[in-house]
């Protein structure tokens, strides 16, 4: 039986987590607007596009997903656009636990990781016992990474020790797999909440903090992402530990993704400009990036007709 009651002699590890700073929304919006004025051209643009491609988690999370759908997505991941030589690979495929095995087989030898959602994705409204079982199941099927959801209702009620504990428990159930903690920022609503949830997730052991499931609007925004990157930065400065971040949903154009990259660069710097520490959760983004790469290489504007759908 899993119990979260603590012996009276110990304080909860949440007490070690520093108070989260408050966040001024208008100030964040202004900083974001300034990131968007950066003009990325020529070789800087090409470098950005290739980096973005290498950071994508190609995703399919539909109720109507089938093995064939997943196999086609994996095929796309391994052959983004063969007409353009020298392209980097995407970072991972993200699927439901029941399709992890299919993905694993389809991606054999490619080096592309398999990420699985778990813990009652997307709502998380499921008893903890079952959420942990689902996590273990996904890992045993071959998932390299697990994307969990926090219990937003509990968090919004102020039950932060519960939030801490559920993340720590899922991390334990992951074993060697990497854990991404989805905050579902669209339901957290305020940037103060996003910051607090980020801090809890990092101290509780999450390898990545992730914005959203993509099933709730709004999903990722530059504003929540900035707050989360600042949480990562402060966590690193306090503990020396390096963790990652993933915005997911709503980033469908290369132009927007480049703005995210600018934001990443100017908030965390060189060490975070790698798919080991930053991912884009997206499906349509890849093709838009490919169109832009083709345009950069050939000099002419492209048509979607020439790029395979996933």
């Amino acid at each position, binding site marked *: 039986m899993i119990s979260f009651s603590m012996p009276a002699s110990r304080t909860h590890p949440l007490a070690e987590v520093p108070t989260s*700073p408050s966040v*001024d929304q208008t100030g964040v919006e202004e*900083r974001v607007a300034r990131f968007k*004025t950066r003009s990325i051209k020529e070789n800087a643009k090409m470098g*950005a596009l290739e980096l973005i491609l290498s950071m994508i988690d190609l995703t399919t999370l539909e109720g109507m997903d089938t093995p064939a759908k997943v196999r086609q997505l994996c095929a796309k991941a391994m052959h983004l656009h063969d007409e353009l030589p020298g392209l980097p690979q995407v970072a991972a495929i993200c699927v439901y636990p029941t399709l992890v095995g299919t993905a694993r087989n389809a991606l054999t030898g490619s080096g592309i990781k398999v990420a699985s959602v778990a813990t009652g994705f997307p709502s998380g409204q499921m008893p903890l016992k079952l959420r942990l079982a689902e996590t273990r199941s996904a890992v045993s099927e071959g998932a390299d990474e697990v994307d969990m959801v926090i219990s937003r209702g509990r968090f919004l009620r102020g039950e932060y020790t519960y939030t801490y504990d559920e993340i720590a428990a899922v991390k334990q159930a992951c074993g060697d797999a990497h854990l991404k903690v989805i905050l579902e920022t669209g339901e957290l609503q305020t940037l103060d909440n996003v910051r607090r949830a980020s801090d809890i997730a990092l101290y509780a052991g999450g390898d990545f903090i992730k914005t959203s499931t993509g099933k709730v609007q709004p999903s990722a925004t530059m504003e929540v992402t900035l707050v989360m990157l600042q949480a990562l930065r402060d966590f690193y400065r306090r503990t020396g530990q390096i963790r990652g971040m993933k915005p997911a949903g709503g980033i469908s154009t290369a132009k927007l993704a480049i703005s995210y990259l600018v934001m990443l660069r100017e908030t965390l710097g060189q060490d975070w400009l790698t798919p080991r520490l930053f991912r884009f959760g997206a499906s349509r983004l890849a093709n838009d990036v490919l169109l832009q790469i083709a345009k950069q290489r050939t000099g002419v504007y492209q048509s979607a007709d020439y790029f395979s759908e996933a």
Partner: protein
Amino acid sequence: MAKKKKPTLNFATDWSYAPAPESTDHVTIENRYDLFIGGKFVPPSKGNYFNTINPATEKRLSSVAEAEKTDVNRAVKAARTAYDKYWSKLTATERGKYIFRIARVLQERAREFAVIESLDGGKPIRESRDIDVPLAAAHFFYYAGWADKLEYAFPGRTAEPVGVAGQVIPWNFPLLMAAWKIAPALAAGNTVVLKPAETTPLTALKLAELLRDIDLPPGVVNIVTGAGNTGAALVNHPGIDKIAFTGSTAVGKIIQKAVAGTDKKYTLELGGKAANIVFEDAAIDQAVEGIVNGIFFNQGHVCCAGSRLFVQESIHDELIDRLKDRMETLIVGDPLDKNTDIGAINSKMQLKRINAYLKIGTAEGAELYQSACAVPEKGYWCRPTLFLNASQSHRIVQEEIFGPVLAVQTFRTVDEAISKANNTPFGLSAGVWSDKGAKVFKVSNQMRAGVVWANTFNKFDPSSPFGGYKESGVGREGGVHGLLPYVRLT
């Protein structure tokens, strides 16, 4: 046990931004400009011209006329004639429509104005494009609407124009200052003679072309270029009813003394040394952004710059760490590059002044810190600079530097912050950063400053009055209060 190395961030990334130059081939700068008097460009009486250069390259952009006393006299006469014969006889609605035209055409020609502003003055194109030009257009649009509504601006009073206004503006926001001066003057029914700063005359001259293109009646606005002598001739001219001056406190005092004994109305918008106060309960990352915006915006060439940082001692180290990180991402360079954050210092003379203060501050015992960014070889540049551990008695804390240089002090209590912030002959602006509303209102109530920014900084709007207490000047620009200097109330 050895002390663990403090985790640092590395902002010198492999992925850097490529040059992103704003195109200039759609922009027209004449080889030479004459004076704009009576609706036409006319040569200066003595035939003298002087160069205006690009401070980023030190290359000549154009030559502009030097207005002598006779030229100033001509301009004032033209303004008077326009006032008597036409402008004062026009209905207020029609007057407003001319000013609306200025706003709309400025929006149409926005990019050209922005590029020329950056070429002539050194400010980044991002700022002239996104801030200076839009605000200038908005200022004309706002005041255009007041022209036929003056009966609502002053309860119980009838507003009449003053007559002819003589206006002298500085080099830090050339087009925007021209808008701040001309718009309310015209809206209230006055005519204008304006002298732009000698290092930044071009956008005022392009504005003159615009005024001619929209068929503004001749003589309603006259532009006379020149240096200190031209300005003095304008201020001292007996035909001027009202003087508006934005510039240094020293010159402002000279003007105030010069008009003693005359009937001339005047407004002065002078220097500042604003306190930017960050309490421990501030939203810290946004406060850092506000500090950066407060002192590095427009290379610190801002009268209301937040040039004295007061940090509550308990958060000093943490805040300075974040500030230093943020400074590493500021790009100093070609003003016409869209990614430039800090452009060129406006002139050789100004750079000399700033560098002199850098020496003074170091000699006084403050700790100088600059970001590691590269700066171009030619041109006038200053890296973003902090002076840590500064004290109230340091010259770098008391005197206006007018560059990207921030003096940092700590405080312990609310009352101490208020007291130190007010302990200055200046009083233009102040910043207050705290998450607690009651504290924000208490502190802003007690700031002896004309503009208080709470949890923000360097925000401007045509509807928002701007101006200083004490030696930062007298009178307000913007909003309803900005009409007051340009009317006689009966």
